[in-house]
């Protein structure tokens, strides 16, 4: 149905935009092992995005590429968090930590969705997210409990992404219309907070005391960053309308 497609679009767009952000690190990471590790995470997320977008597109007769390359900014359904710039490695890890814990809670429940396709994509992706989450946690510990500088940068990274955490857990009408199919974001908040507090505690970091931002709530409004990201992502495809690659 249209609603399921819209829901799949949200899942796909979050994964796509974050993959696009992370892929920038390939050839720029702090060590070669991290070029590979961040590349793996990006590649996994891109895989999730392709599955979700293909499924969403099937409702509208559109391909994954139609959706990725030919939608306008206001037609994307990504959240502010994944649109945030990479910043330094600390901010990237902070964003990964938050997003991968959230996504892990989400996919762990989506595997039981009444929608078989969503459940199957979640099941396939969950193992990967398990690795992403572990990767982010390990780095959070190293940076938080590493040197004074790394501690400071990691905390700043967390503070910087924190305004965009709230949006991940907001229920809305679409979710209400999909009982049994969609996962209720608000249900994920408690387990998210619990694990995050544990990790940050172990990493000698603090849960940020930073206000949430009034975000787009999965609507047509995005952060100011998305436009730049899409301009770059879509430029080659749009120079060649109708071409295949």
């Amino acid at each position: 149905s249209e609603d399921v497609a819209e829901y799949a679009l949200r899942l796909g767009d979050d994964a796509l935009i974050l993959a696009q952000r992370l892929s920038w690190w390939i050839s720029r990471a702090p060590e070669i092992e991290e070029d590979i590790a961040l590349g793996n995470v990006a590649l996994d997320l891109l895989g999730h995005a392709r599955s979700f977008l293909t499924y969403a597109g099937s409702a509208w007769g559109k391909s994954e590429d139609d959706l990725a390359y030919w939608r306008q900014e206001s037609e994307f359904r990504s959240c502010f968090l994944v649109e945030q710039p990479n910043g330094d490695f600390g901010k990237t890890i902070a964003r990964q930590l938050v997003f991968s814990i959230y996504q892990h809670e989400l996919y762990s429940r989506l595997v039981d969705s009444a929608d078989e396709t969503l459940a199957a994509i979640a099941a396939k992706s969950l193992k990967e997210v398990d690795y992403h989450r572990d990767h982010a946690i390990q780095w959070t510990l190293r940076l938080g409990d590493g040197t004074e500088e790394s501690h400071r940068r990691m905390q700043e990274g967390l503070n910087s992404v924190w305004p965009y955490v709230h949006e991940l857990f907001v229920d809305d009408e679409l979710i209400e219309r999909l009982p049994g199919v969609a996962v209720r974001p608000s249900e994920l908040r408690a387990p998210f907070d619990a694990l995050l507090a544990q990790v940050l505690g172990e990493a000698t970091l603090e849960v940020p005391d930073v206000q949430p931002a009034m975000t787009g709530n999965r609507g047509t409004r995005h952060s100011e960053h998305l436009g730049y990201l899409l301009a770059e992502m879509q430029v080659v495809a749009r120079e060649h309308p109708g071409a295949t690659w």
Partner: protein
Amino acid sequence: QAGQAYFDKIIADDSRIEPADWMPEGYRKTLTRQISQHAHSEIIGMQPEANFITRAPSLKRKAILMAKVQDEAGHGLYLYSAAETLGTPREELFDQLLTGKAKYSSIFNYPALTWADMGAIGWLVDGAAIVNQVPLCRASYGPYGRAMVRVCKEESFHQRQGFEILLELANGTEAQKQMAQDAINRFYAPALMMFGPNDDESPNSQQSMRWNIKRFSNDELRQRFVGMIQEQVKVLGLTLPDDQIRFNEETGKWEYGELDWNEFYEVLKGRGPCNAQRMERRREAHENGAWVREAASAYAAKQSQKAQVA
């Protein structure tokens, strides 16, 4: 010396030297230089392709390209490991790259300007690399030969993907076709130069061949490569930018027009379009990552201290 005699016998038998074996200093030095240069080339070689990851025109191609650039990082890692077995630690090799003491393949000093370059790099640059590297799988130094086996397997996969990119473009719109031809035009000569100078300008080759590191001369490999791509370009319906390519029935060799070796040496000396950019990017990544590497060491030290106390 017993060591020298054993070494000579291994070479004579075309068998393998292993890290613990005695080896002449020149052999060790030559191999360290060659393997680490190759490792550096993989790492620097990530840049031109990384340049199109965020702009790849389809999600499938984006995924393939990301995986490819990641593979190059992996190749860099095996090769640094192989070089380390000869006694020089990775940090030191890396430092030689960052300070400009060590070289990397000149081809990566050319810019990647269009999506078609992802095809041309895969087809021509990886193609030339394979022709160069397949014989290295039998190199007399064990760890190098084994690393090459693994690298070559992935490279041939990459080459096929590059060819597919070009094939898709060649069968696409007029603009796509032109983009593909332009990319081939730009990468053809630099790819041929990847085999190194003409044989009479390449004095070190002889010693490498006696040591069973190198198996064929630069020109032999180059001719083989020209023959290969001359056949393949027909499938694309495109052309190579050299109208003098022909198979000489008498010598059994492929011939081609003269290459601009002046340009080759210019790029080698640091004056290519992207030499400065490539090094600046690598140094920047290294410097920006310093605090992260320090944090990881500090954390590891704390953890091992805790483990000892417990």
